[in-house]
């Protein structure tokens, strides 16, 4: 008989309550996304639910936004989209690039140092995002720094470091020193051993880190809300500026694309680190 935490055969009130609460949790998690998706296919102008009829008109609207240069808004959606992607790509490459050697040094270094370092690099995770935004804004403004796109890239890198480092570290955990020693005893230099033996073994963790950095940076709103300027602004900020007054259904259609991209990337991460580590 399987006993488990969720009994399958003799459940009674216990099983009922557990499943009910879990379903409630799933509803709270999923309903907003589901409603956005349904409403994006609405044919009506209003946001009443359920829509009277369905159409693809808002998707056509999004396509028009991307093809026509809209002179009325200060920053077009295309510019924000490009900025978002460029920022996310730089953040992804830089954060992963610095975390791979650090993860290697921590995994091969002393245990005490490792614990302290892990704590230091977890700090951005628990630091209030508003305060990160305000702090970076204060520095950039009071020192009058001309940073261009790095205004957003630098805070984003700090934000994603904990996720990337954790993935690289758990990838390093499974790699024993003997493999490197074997490579060195066969005549490889230590650097060559790292490059040809350790890095390929870390591949899944590195890829997971890259994707994590990409999604977090691409979806980030709070810090960017403080740091954006007229010249450098991202897609979430553009969406915010569109909806301050009222909800515009074409942004819902755009949201569906973002949801689809995020789901795809999360599934990819989940596949990469399946069974090995945890998402956090």
């Amino acid at each position, binding site marked *: 008989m399987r*006993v*488990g*935490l969720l009994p399958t055969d003799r459940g009674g009130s*216990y099983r009922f*309550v*557990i499943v009910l*609460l*879990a379903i*409630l*949790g*799933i509803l*709270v*998690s999923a309903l*907003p*996304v*589901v*409603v*956005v998706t349904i409403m994006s296919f609405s044919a009506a102008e209003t*946001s*009443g*639910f*359920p829509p009277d009829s369905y159409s693809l008109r808002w998707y056509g609207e999004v396509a028009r936004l991307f093809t026509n240069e809209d002179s009325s808004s200060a920053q077009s959606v295309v510019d924000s989209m490009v900025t978002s992607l460029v920022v996310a790509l730089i953040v992804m490459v830089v*954060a992963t*690039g*610095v975390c791979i*050697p*650090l993860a*290697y*040094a921590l995994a*091969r270094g002393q245990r005490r*140092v490792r614990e302290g370092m892990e704590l230091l690099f977890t*700090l951005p995770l*628990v630091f*209030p995002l*508003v*305060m990160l935004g*305000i*702090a970076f804004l*204060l*520095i950039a403004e*009071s020192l009058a720094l001309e940073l261009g796109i790095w205004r957003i890239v*630098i805070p984003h890198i*700090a934000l994603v*470091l904990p996720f990337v480092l954790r993935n690289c570290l758990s990838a390093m955990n499974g790699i024993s*020193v003997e493999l490197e*020693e074997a490579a060195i005893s066969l005549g490889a230099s*230590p650097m060559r*051993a790292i490059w040809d033996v350790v890095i390929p073994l870390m591949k899944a963790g590195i890829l997971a880190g890259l994707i994590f950095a990409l999604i977090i940076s691409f*979806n980030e*709103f*709070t810090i960017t*809300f403080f740091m954006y300027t007229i010249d450098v602004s991202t897609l*979430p900020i553009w969406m915010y500026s569109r*909806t301050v007054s009222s909800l515009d259904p074409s942004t819902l259609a755009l*949201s569906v694309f*973002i949801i689809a991209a*995020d*789901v795809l990337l*999360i599934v990819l991460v989940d596949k990469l680190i399946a069974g090995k580590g945890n*998402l956090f």
Partner: protein
Amino acid sequence: MSTTTLSKGQALAFAAPAFIAILPFLAACVYILRFSLSAEQGVIEGFSIRAYQDLMTPFFGRSVWLTLKLAFIATVVVMFMAVPLAFLLTSLRGSFARRLLTVTILLPLILNLLVQAYGWILLLGPSGALNTVLKSLGLIERPLFLLFNETGVLLGLIQTSLPLAVFPIVSAVRGISNEHLEVASSLGASNWRILRDVSLPLLRPALVGAASIVFAFNASAFAIPLLLGGRRVQMMGVAIRDMISPLFNWSGAAAAGMILILLTLFVLVVSAWLVRVTTVKTKG
């Protein structure tokens, strides 16, 4: 001597790029602390605790109280849903079902907060999905006002912080040996009894850890109260923003921010201490 142990110099060289990457963050922390002690509101000059004294107003006190209250309620609700979800997630057999549930729970943490706010606005608005359903069931006559007040903010907080609790609990549940449960069950304990006397005590460190992270995350929420609370729900994050944006009281914002940071750190430290104390107790 093994050739693969890193020398101190090598280790430093390997860690240096990451340090440079995190340096702006550390600088930002120091800068905020220094600004909160500035004697001037707009620039860093001299030392004074006036910014902190100026915060001792009923308005800021209400904001702190509201923040603590909403974060606490959201944490309790999240924990009641996170434990069952973790049980469900770990007992799913098929990899497709497991993956689907993982994505469903994780998505709200990662997805652009604007999209989620749209979802809640469409769900909770006067002509939104929830009101339509309730009205057609004849449960209400006039639409409920769920948006731009504490209810809407609370739901948003619960949704976005749920994944932070579920995944640490999932890994703790995986660590529970099935033997414990089998022994309890073969001795005749009911499911509720097993939950109370075996599973929950074994999960306690993970539960305390998860709850503290959820609380800290919710206490420092900004986008959700901004988008779903309007001007009326002044959680600390929003109140701090207002000090900067219309008022230009930068040192005040820095001081309020320091209070927020200390608050979240306090919760995290106390819970880490609690975890240590309780694990020692169960071992002894």
